[in-house]
């Protein structure tokens, strides 16, 4: 029985991922403790999204291991073959524990917002429809789009869609939330409403891993910042330290460039 206080919510160790001859992650290790909010920064092509997608097996790493709450995902990583999970059932159960929020929302367009929220809880987790509906209504209330519950995703603004997608992820009662550039597809004036929801989640102590370009958000909200460069962790530490006193020259350049873009 693993000790709950020391077992990390997510533990990545030595993650390698390659596409054909191109290796995009060269053995990345990262552990997220319960309640930690980790922002993962990096320029495009640094492998930050791939790393996040390796956590819930949307990308299966060629090497290294992933454990969620101490449960290691069994992988078939025979060299020369496409890596794949050994046990689909295990992966499906763990995926529900590590819910994902995508850059492009990816709400199901044939379902209303409310139906989007209860789809996985009812059909994957086999929870009672009535309970799920009540919980979904409460979640929509919380992210501020309760009035949109019977609308289809296309009728919502980008910010509303992303808030609905966050609610959909929360509806699975996950223990970890994964955010893959959640505000990158949004108009600038809609970014704030999504970040506010994420701030609230962080404040209530949820474990979150966030791939983002929002420097201010990473600095203010995360408990730890990880900077990825060319498939390796280049800089890592509490935002108060790494932003004011970066050890790596590349991270120094990265924050000054991002800062200039923000002006």
């Amino acid at each position: 029985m693993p000790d709950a206080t020391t077992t990390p919510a997510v533990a990545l160790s030595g993650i390698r991922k390659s596409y054909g001859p191109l290796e995009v992650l060269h053995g990345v290790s990262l552990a997220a403790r319960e309640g930690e909010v980790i922002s993962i920064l990096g320029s495009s092509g640094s492998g930050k999204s791939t790393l996040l997608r390796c956590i819930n097996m949307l990308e299966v790493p060629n090497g290294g291991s992933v454990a969620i709450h101490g449960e290691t995902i069994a992988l078939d990583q025979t060299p020369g073959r496409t890596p794949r999970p050994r046990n689909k059932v295990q992966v499906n159960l763990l995926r529900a524990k590590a819910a994902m929020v995508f850059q492009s929302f990816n709400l199901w367009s044939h379902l209303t917002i409310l139906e989007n929220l209860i789809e996985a809880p009812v059909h994957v987790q086999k929870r009672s429809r009535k309970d799920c509906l009540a919980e979904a209504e409460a979640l929509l209330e919380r992210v501020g789009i309760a009035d949109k519950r019977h609308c289809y995703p296309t009728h919502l603004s980008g910010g509303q869609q992303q808030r609905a997608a966050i609610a959909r992820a929360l509806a699975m009662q996950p223990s970890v939330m994964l955010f893959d550039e959640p505000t990158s597809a949004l108009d600038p004036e809609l970014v704030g409403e999504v970040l506010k929801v994420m701030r609230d989640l962080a404040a209530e102590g949820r474990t979150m891993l966030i791939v983002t370009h929002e420097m201010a958000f990473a600095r203010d909200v995360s408990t730890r910042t990880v900077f990825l460069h060319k498939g390796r962790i280049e800089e890592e530490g509490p935002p108060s330290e790494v932003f004011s006193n970066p050890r790596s020259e590349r991270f120094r350049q990265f924050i000054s460039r991002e800062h200039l873009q923000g002006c």
Partner: protein
Amino acid sequence: MSFDLPFVAESFVALLRGIPLTLQLTVLSVVSGGILAFGLAFMRISRKWWLDAPAQFYIFVFRGTPLLVQIYIIYYGLSQFPVLRHSVLWPFLREAYWCAVLALAFNTAAYSAEIIRGGLLSVPAGQVEAARACGMSGLLLFRRIVMRLALRQMLPGYSNEIILMVKSTALASTITLLEITGMAAKLISESYRPVEIFVCAGAIYLAINFLVTRLFAWLEYAVTPKNRNSEERRA
């Protein structure tokens, strides 16, 4: 030429007796051909060449040859093979009815497979990924997400195929079946008045296809989220 109304009415009523056979041929071939089409579509998108290649070849052959030729080959050709003549299938294969169903089913399967494949490929990858990330896979993912999104894209093309099938059953008249067109040919050989009779036959096909069109219009409405165009998507 004068249009003899009482004769037209009489012929029309006579032709109505062909409707059940026309509908039977259509429904049987569309249902069995549709099942075959799903198999072919999955073979096509399997990304395994040994599944894709036979499906492609099948579709190439059945789309590339006339349906009439296919009907003739099945009806006149199969009896040439003693293996078939002595098989348990022979009681079926010697009947013009089942030969017509078989040819129509094989034919529609080829076209429908490509419609289904197009529908499946149109499903946005992001929505499938979101479903996977929620722990869906296999049949659940297909049933709850993929098929529902694909269906919307497939319906317009598939309604075309059904309309073509209703009309294609007319070719069954060439192998002795008395569906609407066969019935018309029989009446003409008795009366020598092709215009009135064929106009009546045409009107009946038109009526059937009107119903088919309405059915698909309703289906399309049913699977489309309401008032989609009322607000532009922003993102």
